């Protein structure tokens, strides 16, 4: 039982939390600019698929990562055209992205590799240890669980917080989400900012998908994201659209998933089919206890056009 609460739980919490953290960041950027994004799930799938496809084509996992970002940018850009440029309903448009991405990625696997379901193995992002830190006394073993990629993700979290909360661009972006009309009156290019916020959220979601497909694994599987895009959205809402709290909630979801996995290994005769639902139940509980209805951006979900 001591294994159950070991350091390795920390490691799997991180690696299961990151595929929630990355789309959460995308969703946060998107919603702070005033556009609801329930298409994160589909954009993640696009990224997971793009990563494997480009990794397979080029033989380089890093180019695979680039391919994932490209797919995310295209998918996010498409969503931006539908929601920002054409002012379509944001939930309906994102549902379209989710359906099309799930169908397209699943249909392309047999079309490209000739087999249903799971692709063959492709080059994977190597596990790189952090320099120096794991050799430290006491805290060393904890750092040994953190790969370089994980550390980069946390740097990215900080960067998003910095841009959103400490730069003019971030202020403009948040203004678009709080009151698009006021932002417009102040000379902020509302449509441009929203467009790029949606497109960039696609890149973040795609990176989350790529983490699943070519960092944790080396294959793409149909619907391998398993609702993590939606968990990310729940984490963002429960974190009240703020980077820090949403990060903590994302990690909590990752921990729930990690515990479900470990319990399956260490505790016999546990219905792991039910444990699989743990993160989703946790997300529901989080949403149910969510207090303060009005903490989202005031203008989120409202298409903007000059009267």
């Amino acid at each position: 039982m001591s294994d159950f609460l070991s350091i390795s739980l920390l490691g799997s919490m991180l690696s299961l939390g990151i595929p929630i953290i990355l789309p959460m960041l995308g969703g946060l950027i998107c919603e702070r600019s005033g556009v609801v994004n329930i298409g994160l799930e589909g954009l993640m799938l696009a990224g997971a698929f793009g990563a494997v496809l480009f990794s397979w084509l080029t033989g380089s996992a890093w180019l695979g990562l680039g391919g994932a970002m490209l797919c995310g940018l295209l998918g996010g850009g498409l969503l931006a055209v539908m929601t920002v440029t054409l002012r379509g309903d944001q939930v309906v448009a994102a549902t379209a992205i989710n359906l099309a991405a799930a169908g397209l990625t699943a249909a392309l696997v047999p079309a490209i590799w000739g087999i249903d379901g799971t692709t063959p193995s492709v080059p994977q992002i190597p596990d790189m240890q952090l320099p120096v830190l794991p050799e430290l006394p006491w805290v060393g073993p904890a750092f040994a669980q953190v790969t370089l990629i994980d550390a980069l993700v946390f740097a990215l979290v900080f960067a998003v917080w910095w841009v959103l909360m400490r730069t003019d661009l971030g202020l403009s972006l948040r203004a678009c989400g709080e009151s698009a009309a006021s932002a417009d009156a102040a000379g902020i290019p509302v449509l441009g900012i929203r467009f790029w916020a949606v497109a960039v959220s696609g890149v973040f979601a795609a990176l989350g998908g790529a983490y699943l497909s070519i960092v944790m694994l080396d294959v793409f599987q149909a619907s391998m994201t398993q609702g993590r895009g939606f968990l990310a959205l729940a984490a963002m809402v429960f974190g009240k659209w703020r980077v820090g709290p949403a990060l903590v909630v994302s990690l909590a979801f990752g921990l729930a998933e990690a515990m479900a996995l470990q319990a399956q290994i260490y505790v016999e005769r546990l219905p792991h089919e039910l444990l699989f639902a743990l993160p989703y139940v946790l997300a529901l509980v989080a949403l149910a206890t969510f207090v303060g209805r009005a903490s989202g951006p005031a203008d989120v979900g409202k298409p903007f056009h000059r009267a």
Partner: protein
Amino acid sequence: MGQIERHPPLPAEGTLSLEPQVLADLRERAAQAATGPGRGARLRDAARALAGRGGIFALTLGAATLAILPVVLATGADLGVTAQAFLDGSLGSRFAISETLVQMIPLLIAGLAVAVSFHAGLFNMGVEGQLIFGGLIAGVIGATLELPPALLSVLCLAGGVAGGALMALVPAALKAWRGVHEVVTTIMMNFIARSLAIYAVSPSGPFVSASQPSATEKIPRGAKLPVIWDGTRLHAGLLIALAVMVGLWWLLYRTPLGYRIRLVGANARAARASGVSVGRVTVATLLISGGIGGLAGAVQVLGVYGRFFDSFSAGYGWTGIAVALLAGLSPFGTLVSSFFFAMLASGAVQMQAVAGISREMINVVSGLVVGFVAIQPATLHLARAIRARFGPKARPLTGDPRE
């Protein structure tokens, strides 16, 4: 249409009943309207509205088809062969037509489930989970209770409705009392419903069959929905689906609750201001939607498989979103759009075998259809601009002064 008639004088404010003379006048007008000269204009309006609906339907489908062409070509399939396989597989024979209708049943019911929630401005994205859980409850009831077949059949269907409504209850309660947006919660419930269903028929699960993994025991033959077309799989679920369709139309357009549902969907603030309890309508709508979704699962279990399989749903709940949106949320329109998606589903087998097109393409088509519906305001605006620029001059308004 001739001149516009003036309204009869309205009763003074504060008076509760109409004066007898006014009432008689109104009745006479109503009778005249049903048979008199106004009727032709209303029929013409209805026909024009229908043509508009049909036009949008055809445009959306046409655009989705165009958009999917490059994908089909990219997979290396021959277009002519693909189209032929699609038509052969969905309409080419007695068997093909019956299979299309079999596929249509869950899609129609699921589409109606989605449509009713959208009418209230609610996004029930959990129809897939409601369908799975409804199917599970129906399968469990059918496999465990020992009752006369007809009664068992009804009980299974009722259980399916209850199961679906139960899955919708959590999002409904959270929406009404905590203000949590239903999109995320209904989606979460999908995963929870699926885990419950997989667990229930897992090797250690409580309802797993002794002989068939991942399934419940068989439902007694007599309790299954009877086949209504000899020599095919087409079952009485079709009649249930059609009854739900008519019932939903009746609910939405002929009952106070339906009026409230549409009012909340059109403008929740106005609904609240006019005394409608938005929370209550929200809960009622989501429960109705979930119940219909659960019924779709129960009908599929009772009509096609005769037992619950944990993977019996081929994403019907998701395709249902496209079915409802393509139909413009109209219950009768849903019949047409579900038939189209059923053709895709039954044609997919043939397309896969002959042209190598994956069945997953249905989801791509769904996505494209939903996408084109999302941008419909913009495309209609464009169409209007084009018509104003190049088309015939707009006719002067006639007929109903409300136009």
